[in-house]
């Protein structure tokens, strides 16, 4: 009897698989790659896809998670082996590189008559373009601001810094024992560049200038912070997540980080008293525009992919997920309705006014590598800010001057 039951179950299961397969074939499947590692992000993305799948019966959207560290590799291998998703949710400075690789479709003409395009902020939308042609649309944006531990600053009798000089002195005042005054992720990759650019741009430079006095000033700032002991040298091995963990463990009095950490911090450290202010200003206010874009991959499912993008870009739908991501909407009409009762997120929204996109340049990864290398040389003391700046400028010049 038992055996009969088992075989009946197996047959039933097989039938179920076969029939569901048959049903699935009548729909077109659109695969989305993403690298969001927090459960909250995955849940929300899955919910949005479910909304879309139940809203119509022609397209089935499925998501696939690929770790950030592997993402670029998988995409470029996929390009060589023609095994690509239909949509990739990618870091905005990489968009131009992948468009140049020929991975993404030019959707300028297909979206020409779409009225919503005008609602998008210019910075994020430009990061989707290569030579003026649109290869995707923005997902959502974020930027960096300064977090501080209220108790630690109060104990040191300090106020949140507004300028670079104040940053140095407050950081030094709050450094005591195991506590360091300031931390910013400075790993030698895109993550480190992301943070450092706030200083480089704050000095008045563009992404492609570092060899001048401004660039040296930005590098000297990080060097001085480490030299005085206010910033641990270990920041060169800390990701943004590591910096956040150090902050909520009470090892850092201030940190530079993004709004996507807010949900996690509220959950993991409910008793910690912290606040967020605009980044200290060097010469001009500056922050780094982060966030993701939807890249539409070339192939026979471009129209289906665009149908999905139009669905998630719909203001009504966007309002259901963008806050859960801790992102600021890339559309003006949605962004205006966000965070009206959240003072912390309001700071990030205000910081967006001074946030700039990185690059865009098809060889941005190489430029980024030169910048993060210079920053690491200054932090570790392997080279003086002057020497590091000169070397990085030489590398960048070779990249932007050769075609």
């Amino acid at each position, binding site marked *: 009897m038992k055996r009969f039951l088992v075989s009946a179950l197996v047959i039933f299961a097989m039938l179920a698989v076969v029939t569901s397969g048959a049903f699935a074939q009548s729909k077109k499947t659109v695969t989305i790659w993403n690298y969001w590692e927090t459960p909250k992000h995955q849940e929300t993305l899955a919910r949005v896809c479910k909304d879309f799948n139940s809203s119509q019966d022609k397209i089935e959207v499925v998501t696939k998670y690929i770790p950030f560290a592997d993402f*670029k*590799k998988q995409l*470029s291998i996929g*390009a*060589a082996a023609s095994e690509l998703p239909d949509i990739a949710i990618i870091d905005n400075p990489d968009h131009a*590189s*992948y468009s*140049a*690789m*020929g*991975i993404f479709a030019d959707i300028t003409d297909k979206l020409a008559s779409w009225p919503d395009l005008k609602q998008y902020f210019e910075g994020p939308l430009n990061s989707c373009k290569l030579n003026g042609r649109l290869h995707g649309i923005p997902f959502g944006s974020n930027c960096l601001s300064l977090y501080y531990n209220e108790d630690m600053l109060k104990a040191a009798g300090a106020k949140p810094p507004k300028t670079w000089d104040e940053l140095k002195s407050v950081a030094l005042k709050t450094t005591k024992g*195991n506590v360091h005054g300031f931390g910013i992720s400075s*790993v*030698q*990759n895109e993550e480190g560049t992301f943070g450092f650019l706030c200083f480089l741009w704050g000095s008045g430079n563009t992404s492609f200038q570092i060899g001048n006095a401004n660039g040296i000033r930005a590098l000297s700032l990080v060097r001085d912070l480490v030299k005085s002991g206010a910033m*641990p*040298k*270990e920041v*060169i*091995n800390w990701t943004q997540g590591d910096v956040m963990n150090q902050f909520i463990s009470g090892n850092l009095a201030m940190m530079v980080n993004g709004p996507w950490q807010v949900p996690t911090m509220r959950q993991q450290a409910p008793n910690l008293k912290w606040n967020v202010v605009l980044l200290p200003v060097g010469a001009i206010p500056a922050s780094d525009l982060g966030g993701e874009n939807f890249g539409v991959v070339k192939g026979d499912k471009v129209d289906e992919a665009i149908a999905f993008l139009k669905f998630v870009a719909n203001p009504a739908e966007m309002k259901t997920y963008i806050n859960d991501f801790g992102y600021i909407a890339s559309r003006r009409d949605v962004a205006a309705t966000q965070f009206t009762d959240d003072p912390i997120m309001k700071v990030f929204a205000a910081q967006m006014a001074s946030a700039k996109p990185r690059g865009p340049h*098809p*060889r941005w*990864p*190489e430029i980024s*590598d030169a910048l993060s*290398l210079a920053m*690491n*040389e200054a932090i*570790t003391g*392997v080279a003086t800010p002057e020497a590091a700046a000169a070397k990085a400028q030489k590398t960048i010049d070779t990249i932007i001057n050769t075609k």
Partner: protein
Amino acid sequence: MSLSRERATQKRLALPRIAGRDRAGTRMNRLRRYFRHGNIGYLFVLPAITYMVLLVGYPIVSNFILSIQDVTVTTLNALGKPLVGLRNYQTLLADGVLQRSIGNTFLFTVCCIVFQFAIGFALALLFNMGFPLAKPIRGLLMIPWMIPMTVTALMFKFMFSSNVGIINQFLQACGIIKSPVEWLLEPRSAMFSLIVANIWIGIPFNMILLSTGLTTIPNHVKEAAAMDGASKWQSFLFIIVPMLKPVIESVLILGFIYTFKVFDLVFVMTNGGPVNSTHLLSTYSYKLSFVLFKYSQGAATANILFLILLAVSIFYLKFIYDDRRAE
């Protein structure tokens, strides 16, 4: 090799018979004759050769072609990829990071091999003494070899951390150092930390192979030496080492190859940092290809690694061949 000798004997035996049939001269006969001559061996190696050509030969050739082209983000999907000859190699050899990577790779390999081999040999001798629990303990010592490399690398990364790492805490508690050492934050000490981690991983491999080798040395040889008044040291130097020579050669050369192409340990522990000071050829090749999208330069770096290992392998094969001939 013995195959040719065998063929020669077969030829001698088979010739008279075949000479008679040869006049019939059909194709079938010729085929049969061809295989009877011992050439059937080629048929047996055919699957292996096909496998090698497809899965080993093709990537090598394709990688070489990639390395003499100029393939970057902008040309990846273009139809005609520009050929640039050896320019990628020239650019790389003038590149400070590559020079440093080559130096690092050799330093890493030599240091690791020397210590892994010495410690592994000492442990093999120790466990060969056959004290109680020798076998289970030797089994336990295999653990470092079995743990996934990523796990080991993460563990050492934590242990070498300057603020919370156990190594600094231990050294401070013993009073050996006063302030924390920045193990992974200084170029030299970061390289040192990588070498220490890899030695730990490689000891079991050396130990188990040498230990197996030791069991093949008959006891009576050692006993005879002891009877003749050889000291422990003399019996080690003049009996054990010479009898283990084939094993020692294999261990050293395999160890060299394994260590030379280490990737995951460095990738996880330092990712070539701080300031590109701990890149090995393998990690630098990865960075060029998949971080900076300079595919051709990445391929060229991989080829440099390949050429060095090829030279070592030829050396190894020659060693084995000479040994066989000597026997």
